């Protein structure tokens, strides 16, 4: 067992971070906010060229031939950087929808009764196991109604006649999508932790950096204590691909992303409440992602259903149990 990043994985991750620093710095982020989250096609193609969408396609199909663990690292970086766009849907569509793998096509997805992201600029829409393109897509878009999105980076459309929620019986693609969304949440949670720590060290009140006050210090500690278990859960779920494990990872990453953004905002005080600070972008995106692809109630029910000594994959042993666990040493 070596549940750590391999050298290749580390290189992949830092390569992605360098790429995003270069092609999606803070100026481009704020520019994306100002144009309401509509996509930069050139950037989308750059992501395609870097293998972001084709990462898990076999090499013989023009892909990179890597797996979910590597994809999770890239999506974590995307989440850190607040990279806009239907990243998960387009990644899942690689090999299924023409141009998705290369970043030539923008592919979005219908997810339960949630409003659909980036619909106006989408070249295809995943609906269940299929994809709408061409005339059916145009008809679908025509019947949709734009809504004023709470997240400035994610334009939303209500689609006519709500599609039934898919959560009741998710398929393999749904779980993969949930995992990659969890990875984005993880990246966001880690980023807001860093931002909060940075601010707490810089901002002085009452003659000291606010990070020297326990109230602020402990908020930061709790942020890390949300991020690290979520990280272990997301990475492990990427390795095993187990549905219950993915569900657990999504739940914890959602909680880490939303609550860390809230704490980061609190630590920033009034400045955190402004449009100019990035923290609200993390929070609003985290809200959207938490509702998407295995949201709270459905995830909790799946995890509850996965419990019980007789259930498969419950992590229990059939061996006879011994009393209470050791309470640890005194001293």
């Amino acid at each position, binding site marked *: 067992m070596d549940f750590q990043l391999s050298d290749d994985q580390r290189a992949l991750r830092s390569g992605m971070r360098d790429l995003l620093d270069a092609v999606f710095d803070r100026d481009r982020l704020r520019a994306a906010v100002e144009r309401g989250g509509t996509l930069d096609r050139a950037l989308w193609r750059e992501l395609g060229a870097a293998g972001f969408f084709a990462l898990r396609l076999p090499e013989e199909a023009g892909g990179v031939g890597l797996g979910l663990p590597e994809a999770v690292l890239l999506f974590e970086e995307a989440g850190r950087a607040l990279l806009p766009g239907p990243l998960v849907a387009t990644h899942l569509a690689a090999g299924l929808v023409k141009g998705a793998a290369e970043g030539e096509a923008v592919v979005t997805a219908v997810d339960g009764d949630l409003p659909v992201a980036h619909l106006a600029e989408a070249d295809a829409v995943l609906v269940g196991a299929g994809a709408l393109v061409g005339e059916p897509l145009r008809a679908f878009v025509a019947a949709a109604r734009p809504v004023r999105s709470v997240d400035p980076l994610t334009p939303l459309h209500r689609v006519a006649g709500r599609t039934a929620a898919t959560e009741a019986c998710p398929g393999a693609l749904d779980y993969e999508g949930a995992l990659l969304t969890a990875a984005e949440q993880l990246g966001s949670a880690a980023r807001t932790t860093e931002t909060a720590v940075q601010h707490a060290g810089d901002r002085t009140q009452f003659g000291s950096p606010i990070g020297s006050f326990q109230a602020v210090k402990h908020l930061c500690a709790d942020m890390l204590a949300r991020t690290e278990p979520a990280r272990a859960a997301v990475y492990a779920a990427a390795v095993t691909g187990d549905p219950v494990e993915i569900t657990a990872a999504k739940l914890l990453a959602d909680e880490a992303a939303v609550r860390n953004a809230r704490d980061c905002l609190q630590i920033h005080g009034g400045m955190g409440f402004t449009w100019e600070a990035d923290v609200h972008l993390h929070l609003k995106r985290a809200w959207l992602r938490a509702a998407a692809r295995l949201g709270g109630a459905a995830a909790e029910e799946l995890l509850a259903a996965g419990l*019980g000594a007789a259930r498969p994959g419950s992590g229990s042993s059939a061996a006879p149990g011994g009393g209470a666990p050791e309470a640890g*040493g005194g001293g």
Partner: protein
Amino acid sequence: MDLTYTEAEEEFRRRLREWLAGTLPGLPPKPSPDDWPARRAYDTAWQRMLYDAGYAGLHWPVDAGGRGATPTQHLIYLEETEKAGAPYVGANFVGLLHAGPTVAAEGTAGQRARWLPPVLRGDEVWCQGFSEPDAGSDLAALRTRAVRDGDAYVISGAKIWTSHAEVADWCELLVRTDPDAPKHRGISWLAMPMDAPGITVRPLRTLAGSTEFAEMFLDEVRVPVRNRVGAENDGWRVTMVTLSFERGTAFVGEVVACRRTLDALADEARRNGRWDDAVLRRRLGRLNAEFRALWRLTQWNVAESERTGGVPGTGGSVFKLRYSGARQELYEAAAEVLGADAFDVDREWVLDRLSSLSYTIAAGTSQIQRNIVAERILGLPKGR
């Protein structure tokens, strides 16, 4: 990110399982929790069996008589013994997990030869005399005085939270040998024989009604100077070398046990009808996510420790902070599952609920853990 065990690791697990399967059925029944001599006998007998089978001191260095196992092997050992329902380390806890490793790291050849083998064989039991009534979270504020008198220290003071004091042969004791030095600099580490005159042990009853801890009063107890490990006044460092030696395995057995408890709670809720309560059911679902993540985080920390060769880790504080709260939530959920039975101490989980109340306090309160995480990991400035 590799979660598969190597062939050698699997082989280690197979042999351990075989041995456990052959050995556990022959164990005598567990003694009553109130019968201390019987508990000592049971725990040390088990240690002797481990010794004979080659599992004693699994994580100790080979030159200290241990097996020099990797952190991953240690994880497998803890996981498998917990799953098999093997006895806990019990009375051997301090000897195997703290005093022994301290002697191994800092003791002289003579000290190692005197104290280590009896711990591994289950012949001698150690207890720990660190905490004091006025020095809890602020351990270094300890005031128990040791005054040099010829070839002995004469020690007076009071210790608290000493497990197994009633049946221990030795106590690893922190004493103040220089009252004028800064508080971390005037402390020494001594091995105190528990049969020395002047030691009074008084059981300390916890809110769970048990007497697993004791207070220990020292009235001019003489301890030979040769029982000091490390230099005089260097005891803080000597102790911290071991206390901070964290291979990520501290809570392996507990997390395995918590996950089993969670499964049992779901079974019980389905049986008694409380599964229909969506609030409770979803709460159990969240706990499933929580303990799965804690298990994966354990593996992550162990693997990190394996890579770094067991360098003191800081991840342990994050783990403990999260785990302490999760364990308390687990037993709050257990009370919900039990419903009206939650007030009957003889029902399973009720005493565990009471015990879990200490988790955010013992071995560094959650408040202290947050300070550690914020200052040592996140690099926030010192303060209050």
